[in-house]
């Protein structure tokens, strides 16, 4: 027996693996079937009764999410009968819904609202009063729950059971009194809670970190990679481009890396991108200077130095392209490779893994960095809590590619303090900490949102970053700065 079946959806043939459901086949055929409770990353519940389709030969309409596709099946999603059913199913979902879209944070990306505009638009026919339920419940550090907006699709309950296995949510009571909730006095406490706001098809779960801050239609999304740990989840980064302000990250489906989800730690990766938390211009001994002057100062400092008097301290938070550019530039300027050190935070437990996505190695490109060093035949010394090997090398000039995500380095201030004891230190990073002020030269760099490049995750999967316009126009990427360095050094000769 063949393990593929061919069926037709709206007279369009589509071939899918045997065992696929109609809704999966429709997705493959590019036909959208309206649905609430079905989610490709979760089990089938079949409770919202919204994905009704006509199957030729079956007396009644069938739910597309739980009906297996069979050979020769003829499915219709466009007939008046189907449309009428969508209208009625929607009306049932709206019986007790408060219709407070103007003040609901989900407005604009609410599936209930979208489907109402698409297949609804009718006068309500209910005489009965709406059932009132608890609103604005504090269900954890990250989420607010409005049980009136809930349509009981059970996506959140299944997420808690199947993905995080914490089972914090349930549906209590029955009939029109049925309500989503936690057990009294217990909260949602895990590192994946924002996914609940994502998978909630309506505005029942909203994110404390985002609600009421910005309307979603002002946000532009960029397909990029989360820099929060070595898993490197595929994400969409949301920016209000007219304000030049980043607001949030959401996971982007990638079966090879993160599936449908991402962790709450990763959701904070927009915070360090905004102007208020960044160094705006290079600082030479505490004085603001231009980027050109800063690179001139580095070139002058490097002039005539032997390669072993220059130290390059790397963190695994830069792109492959930036490592290649900095190593090549230094090799050409110094005629040989400098001493290379790798800075890891002393508290790091790089082999930790939470069993879902989050890894103890909080650097997005450890694998890529090691590959580049290997290609260049460089053996690097690891600095992890002990900075003596760096001090023992007594470098005249130390170039530090500092961590972009400073929260991943809880002992950053201590490390920077040790670096400040060295002779001339150049710190490529956006640190605003007090200890950083003692360094000779600080040069701000582009963040992951502002540059193109490659991160290689723990598993060897290479993913591309996509550049948005920089928040500060004068700030360059590490590869551009090192390009300047080799040009300046050459023109001096």
């Amino acid at each position, binding site marked *: 027996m063949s393990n593929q079946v061919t069926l037709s959806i709206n007279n369009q043939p589509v071939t899918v693996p045997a065992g696929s459901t109609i809704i999966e086949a429709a997705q493959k055929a590019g036909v959208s079937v309206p649905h609430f409770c079905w989610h490709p990353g979760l089990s089938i519940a079949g409770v919202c009764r919204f994905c009704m389709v006509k199957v030729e030969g079956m007396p009644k309409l069938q739910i597309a999410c739980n009906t297996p596709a069979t050979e020769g099946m003829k499915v219709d999603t466009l007939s008046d009968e189907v449309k009428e059913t969508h209208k009625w199913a929607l009306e049932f979902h709206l019986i007790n819904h408060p219709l407070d879209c103007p003040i609901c944070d989900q407005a604009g990306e609410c599936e209930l609202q979208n489907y109402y505009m698409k297949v609804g638009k009718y006068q309500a026919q209910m005489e009965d009063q709406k059932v009132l339920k608890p609103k604005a419940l504090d269900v954890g550090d990250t989420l607010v729950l409005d049980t009136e907006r809930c349509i009981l699709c059970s996506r959140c309950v299944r997420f808690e059971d199947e993905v995080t296995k914490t089972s914090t949510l*349930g*549906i*209590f009571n029955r009939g029109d009194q049925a309500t989503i909730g*936690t057990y009294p006095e217990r909260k949602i406490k895990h590192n994946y809670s924002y996914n609940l706001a994502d998978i909630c098809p309506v505005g029942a779960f909203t994110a404390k970190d985002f609600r009421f801050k910005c309307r979603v239609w002002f946000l532009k999304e960029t397909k990029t990679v989360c820099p929060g740990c070595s898993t490197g989840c595929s994400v969409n980064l949301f920016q209000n481009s007219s304000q030049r302000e980043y607001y949030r990250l959401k996971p982007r489906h990638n079966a090879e890396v993160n599936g449908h989800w991402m962790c709450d730690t990763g959701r904070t990766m927009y915070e360090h991108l905004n102007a208020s938390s960044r160094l705006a211009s290079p600082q030479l001994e505490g004085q603001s200077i231009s980027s050109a002057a800063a690179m001139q100062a580095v070139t002058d400092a490097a002039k005539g130095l032997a390669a072993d008097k220059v130290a390059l301290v790397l963190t695994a938070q830069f792109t492959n392209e930036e490592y290649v550019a900095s190593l090549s530039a230094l090799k050409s300027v110094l005629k040989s490779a400098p001493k290379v050190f790798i800075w890891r935070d002393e508290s790091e437990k790089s082999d930790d893994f939470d069993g879902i996505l989050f890894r103890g190695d909080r650097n997005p490109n450890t694998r890529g960095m090691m590959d580049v060093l290997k290609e260049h035949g460089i053996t690097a010394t690891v600095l992890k809590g002990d900075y003596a090997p760096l001090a023992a090398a007594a470098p005249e000039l130390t170039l530090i590619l500092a961590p972009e995500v400073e929260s991943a380095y809880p002992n950053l201030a201590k490390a920077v303090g040790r670096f400040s004891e060295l002779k001339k230190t150049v710190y490529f990073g956006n640190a605003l900490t007090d200890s950083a002020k003692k360094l000779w030269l600080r040069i701000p760099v582009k963040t992951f949102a502002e540059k193109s490049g490659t991160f290689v995750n723990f598993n060897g999967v290479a993913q591309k970053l996509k550049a948005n316009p920089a928040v500060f126009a004068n700030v360059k990427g590490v590869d551009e700065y090192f390009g300047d360095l080799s040009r300046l050094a050459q023109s001096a000769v």
Partner: protein
Amino acid sequence: MASFFSAGLNETIKGYLGRYETKRSSILPILHAIQDENDWISPEAVQALEAEHGLSVIDVNEVLSFYTMYRKAPPKPYRLEVCGSISCWLNGADKTISDAKSYIAQAEKSGQSVPFECHKVECLGVCGYAPVALVNKDRYLNVTPELARKLIDDYSKKELPAAAKKCAADLAARAAQK
């Protein structure tokens, strides 16, 4: 630490837990067993099911809140449950219920404590002898208002059932703790 449940009840619970493929499947009979022994299902009992037997409080609460016949608040020692479905209703169940309720209320107004509460319930399956009623788990047929009053009087004179005594003792212990 001492178990929340009695030794016998713990054995019963373990028996049900081993009977089905998943632990969740055994929630209904376990809750009945707890209700039979303690007279109601307290939040402490739900939490003890999680702590001592590994049932999630969410799963238990979903079941508990769905069904109306699990008692979620401490009841009085005796429950007069009169069937209000069609045959009993046609044969005067409503009258029995309202009479029994006012009989209890009046006695209480005069300062007497009556160990009884009265509810209307759905079909008890003995339509040939309508109206039908239960006092806790004892069945009575053709329950006229007169018979209902007699049942209330007779039962009130008896020694309280074990579950009611346990319920009262548990509540007293809980009050003393606070």
